[in-house]
């Protein structure tokens, strides 16, 4: 089914998210092409993390439809009608998406290797040996081949985050979500994580969506940057244009504030 038609890899169609009276995302429309690298920037509270969390099904949406790889994820066809997705449908479509979190969320009671084999064995049904080979390859890719037997507590923040990236990749997702993945790290550890993401950008035909405060990295890495403000995409474009000559006043203000802080 995939590959024949040129559907976007991810499509937000009029998506709305509310927390009580507060509208976090308001009628969001966003399309992301296969293999595209999109950076999401914006002030805190602008709804940028919510975009990723909704796509990972960690948050329920209050309106609209999210499409993944040409089919609705939050909804499903039933008797010719679009109805909210049942768990089984959600699980199937969700398998195309992987996520890396700000606080890593590694399983503390498992070694780096076991963190990476748990889901491939129990969800994908890989044999332990296959899963371990796959995990070893990925830990190698993120530069942690020698840390297989280490527990998360024995690793630095940067190393933990790289294990988390390997763990997500072990499920072979088509879309990878990065939610402020360097925000919890000491500055000198950010580089090694960004280096891994850079490598993924070139080595894999992955669609990548990242919320980041690393403007330098977004500028160099992303195909497109979306600036979120008060639950809406305020401005988007190729990094060169958006960072160098932002048109919107809010974008200008935000970038000025962020760049001054560096």
């Amino acid at each position, binding site marked *: 089914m995939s590959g024949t038609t040129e559907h976007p890899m991810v499509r937000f169609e009029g998506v709305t998210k509310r927390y009580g009276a507060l509208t976090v995302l308001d009628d969001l429309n966003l399309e992301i092409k296969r293999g595209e690298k999109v950076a999401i920037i914006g002030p805190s509270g602008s709804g940028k993390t919510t975009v990723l969390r909704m796509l*990972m099904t960690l948050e329920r949406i209050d309106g609209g439809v999210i499409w993944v790889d040409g089919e609705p994820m939050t909804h499903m066809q039933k008797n010719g009608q679009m109805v909210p997705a049942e768990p089984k449908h959600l699980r199937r479509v969700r*398998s195309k998406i992987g996520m890396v979190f700000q606080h890593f*969320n*590694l399983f503390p*009671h498992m070694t780096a290797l076991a963190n990476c084999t*748990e889901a491939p064995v*129990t969800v994908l049904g890989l044999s332990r040996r296959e899963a371990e080979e796959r995990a070893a390859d990925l830990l190698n890719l993120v530069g942690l081949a020698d840390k297989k037997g280490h*527990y998360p507590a024995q690793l630095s923040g940067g190393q933990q985050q790289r294990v988390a990236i390997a763990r997500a990749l072990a499920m072979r997702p088509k879309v990878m979500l990065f939610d402020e993945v360097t925000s919890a790290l000491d500055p000198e550890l950010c580089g090694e994580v960004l280096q891994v993401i850079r490598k993924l950008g070139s080595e894999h035909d992955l669609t990548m969506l990242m919320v980041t405060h690393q403007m330098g990295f977004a500028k160099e890495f992303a195909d497109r940057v979306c600036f979120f403000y008060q639950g809406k995409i305020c401005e988007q474009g190729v990094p060169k244009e958006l960072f160098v000559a932002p048109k919107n006043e809010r974008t200008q203000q935000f970038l000025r504030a962020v760049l001054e802080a560096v």
Partner: protein
Amino acid sequence: MIWDWNYTLEILPILAKASIVTIEATLLSFVIALILGLILALLRMGGPVVGWLASAFVELVRSTPLLIQIFFLFFVLPRAGIVLDAFAAGVIALSLHYGCYCSEVYRAGLEAVPRGQWEACTALNLSSWNTFKNIILPQAIPPIVPALGNYLVALFKDTPLLSAIAVLELVQTAKMLGSENFRYTEPMTVVGLTFLVLSLVSAAGIRWLEQRLNRRSVR
């Protein structure tokens, strides 16, 4: 003479046999309480109706004396056609009572597992069962082992309440020996010491388990 060694030696085998009943009741009740407690904790985290019912049950059991519960199971249920022998009624009462206490402990343990762990499981598409069994429980249990262990010892020390429905456990046996021979000093002392020794042994066992678990899950 205050202490009769011949009499002591005479009653020791009888009390040893009774101590087996006490230990059996303790272990059986505790295992059921551990399982029941986990189920109750999960129900309480479940839907609103089920959660409320489970909470109400826990409150009911925790707010009434164990002795009343034992009497209820043994003397009142037969009126409804449910006849239990004394040992079974005792074990069920102890299991229910301590299961409710354990459910509180489990709840604390489960709530202490960070939200991010559940979210990582969703992101990795783990089933609810695997999430729970492989990720959440192994993190929730080690910190609550000491608290669960306390309930093991408490349950053990509550087994004498079964003497009230004539289960031939340690205290009931000691009482009978005492009244048969008009000497209570020896049987009651032996029984007291047995409780002391077994309590200390289980406390040590729990500490050992705690240390082993801590060593395994490096945090």
